[in-house]
């Protein structure tokens, strides 16, 4: 299981939890697992999220690997100017 940290605005959709455990081997599985466990997260994830894995911000790639020891944070999808 991978511990996924959410931004606190998402607590409303995860029964108040800011950290949830998801069975996943890559970023895509993290996102899919989150939606399965907490369907209320789907709009936010559909709107676009990035995932920080061990401090590296994965903006869009679903294939980036995660492991049980990874530090995983959901953050809002990056855009730039």
């Amino acid at each position, binding site marked *: 299981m991978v511990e996924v940290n959410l*931004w*606190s605005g998402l607590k409303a959709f995860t029964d108040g939890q800011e950290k949830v455990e998801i069975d996943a081997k890559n970023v895509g599985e993290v996102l899919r697992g989150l939606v399965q466990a907490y369907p209320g997260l789907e709009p*936010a994830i559909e709107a676009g999220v990035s995932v920080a894995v061990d*401090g590296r911000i*994965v903006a*869009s790639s679903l294939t980036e690997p995660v492991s049980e020891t990874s530090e995983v944070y959901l953050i809002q999808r990056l855009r*730039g*100017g």
Partner: protein
Amino acid sequence: MAPDGHGTNGFKVVGTRPNRPDGVDKVTGRAKFGADAAAPGMLHAAIVRSPHAHAKILKIDSAKAEAMKGVKAVVTRADFAEGLTGENWNILENVMASDTALYDGHAVAAVAASTPLAARDAAKLIEVEYELLPHVTDVDKAMGSGAPVIRTGAADKSVPEGMHPNVVRYHESGHGDVEKGFAEADLVLEDSFKTEATHQGYIEPHACLAQLGPDGKGEVWCCTQGHFNVQKVCAALVGTDASQLRVTPSEIGGGFGGKTVVFIEPVALALSRKANRPVKLVMSRSEVFRATGPTASTSMDIKIGMTRDGKITAAQGVFRLQGGAFPGAPMEFTAMCAFAPYALENVHQVGYDVMSNRPKQAAYRAPGSPMAAFAVESVVDQLCNELDLDPIEVRLKNASKEGTKASFGPKFDRIGLVETLEAAKAHPHHKAPLAEGQGRGISCGFWFNHGGETAVSLALSEDGTVSLSVGTPDIGGSRASMGQMAAEELGIPYEKIRTTVADTATLGYNEISHGSRVTYASGLATIQAARDTVQKLCARAAAKWGIDEDAVVWEDGCAKPSGPNAGEFEPLPLARIARSMGRTGGPIVGHFEATPEGAGVSFATHIVDAEVDKETGQTKVVRYTVVQDAGKAIHPTYVEGQFQGGAAQGIGWALNEEYIYGEDGRLQNSLFLDYRIPVASDLPMIDTVIVEVPNPGHPYGVRGVGETSICPPLAAIANAVSNAAGVRLKELPMSPPRILAALAAQADG
């Protein structure tokens, strides 16, 4: 990907300052920008825009216009695709209003005619009947009770119950216990700040030339930061297949985020389809101000606690961003960037995305971050003043480093904030004496940077020269740095490479030139495409010599046997292999397609001296120094240019630039005369220090540099002006009337 073999030394071409490949075109007037194209049989278009901030469109009567000589087509919303959802619907609604005009300048119809003057005349003959609706343009008023609702049902599920319907998105993040942290502080300061909307202010107005036939096949020539995005969005909005639409980017006369957005291309395509002729559409400056760009305006509350020795114990911020009549104000970046320079145990940030009757905000260099830095760094400066602490020492004491838990959650990878602060501290500017009436300001700034979808192709010619095709429009000299990276890998002179920004038919999808991604992502792809080419070159040499491919290495532009065991062969230069490639396996082309995910965040520290005339309220920036981490500067001159340009735009934002709306909700300053961007006589020379803390996510260590440079200036200048004037300025721009008002308020006690 870790920085490989090269390290930061040992480069031959990277780090030098060659002339840009498009230099001669740009200084002779030959470079073709958006409005410089023409096609046989071309028509000219003009757009009819709402003069009202908020109005129901009752009727559009184009009979008189259509009867005019030379008029070939009129389009309204009915001429675009139906049934769009999500962001495509938002873009179409902005490109051409459906039943309601949502801001002054909102497009409601368009006409194509044989000459530009005829098109403008015809546009005046299109009669639009409106029913005026109540409007709101201020962020605090737009979220207050009783504010007119811009659009019901626009809010997403993140918004807490009970908020005004104009609040359409909500963000909350942070960690620790801020109340506990404030209790541990010796001094807690709390203040509110506002910033007005500013425009990206690129000198080239949006322009395009478009053709769409009855067979659904089309061509677009336009100035854009992202032609693949133009292709995707236009196909959806006019209802054709993306691959039937070929988009070629022109030279681009500045973008800064404002040309990441599609405004006029679908209109030209719809007119072209109707008239079955090519259509050219060029915005006027006034249209650019009224209907494109600007940034969000903000209203922010900051609270920070500090111990007597300068340790920040807790920080919190509330950020309200008005982003026009559509969702999308970058409040989550404002919130996430706000405290990023500080290692904090207790931090909490909240963001609101608020709609109002203004144009749809667009990204502007590090969208959302400069405003946050203004508010946060102003309070940090106040704390330093009240506790009599050195602003650089306080920032060093609290600085984020590798491994610090960032204010937005994850741990930082390798970052260079401390290095920029140390370089600022060591810079002579930091200790230089100030004259009477002057003040000094310091600020840090942060931006994420971005990677994104990228495809690059590198083809050899038989004469041993190289054609490098990239898919990211060159906004500030990036073709030079791409050529340098290819030359470095291939071991051939920079002059032997020509870098071209290729059209949508030539390469796979490339994300927009945004997020400071070009030198990072297209650069990484160029390096990998060159390595792919080298592998193919080595294979040809191996076949010629009859040895294993593994036994061939590439050095100094030549294939060589990897050692004595590989056999004795004369090195084969690239040109020799290229000359015979047609007979040794065919054309040699290297390529790379990926979504690089190691952009590497970046920090900057700026120092500025400002002089305030207390009688007139006029401010003069007298000295400016930018210190920023570039990871690795490929072409240092263009890196300096990005630093200087960001600082100059920040000076404009801090001191002059603002969107001024009248009571009627109309924009009052839609010309450069009244929306005054910095001119040469407003600015001093802008000193630069390039810090290089390599980004582990790029083979040479590159970090994007384009955006971070605009993060610190608003705050650095506000601190300098406040220190010079002896009163804290909390609203941008710090125009003479605002400075005089602040001085008067202080005098009144």
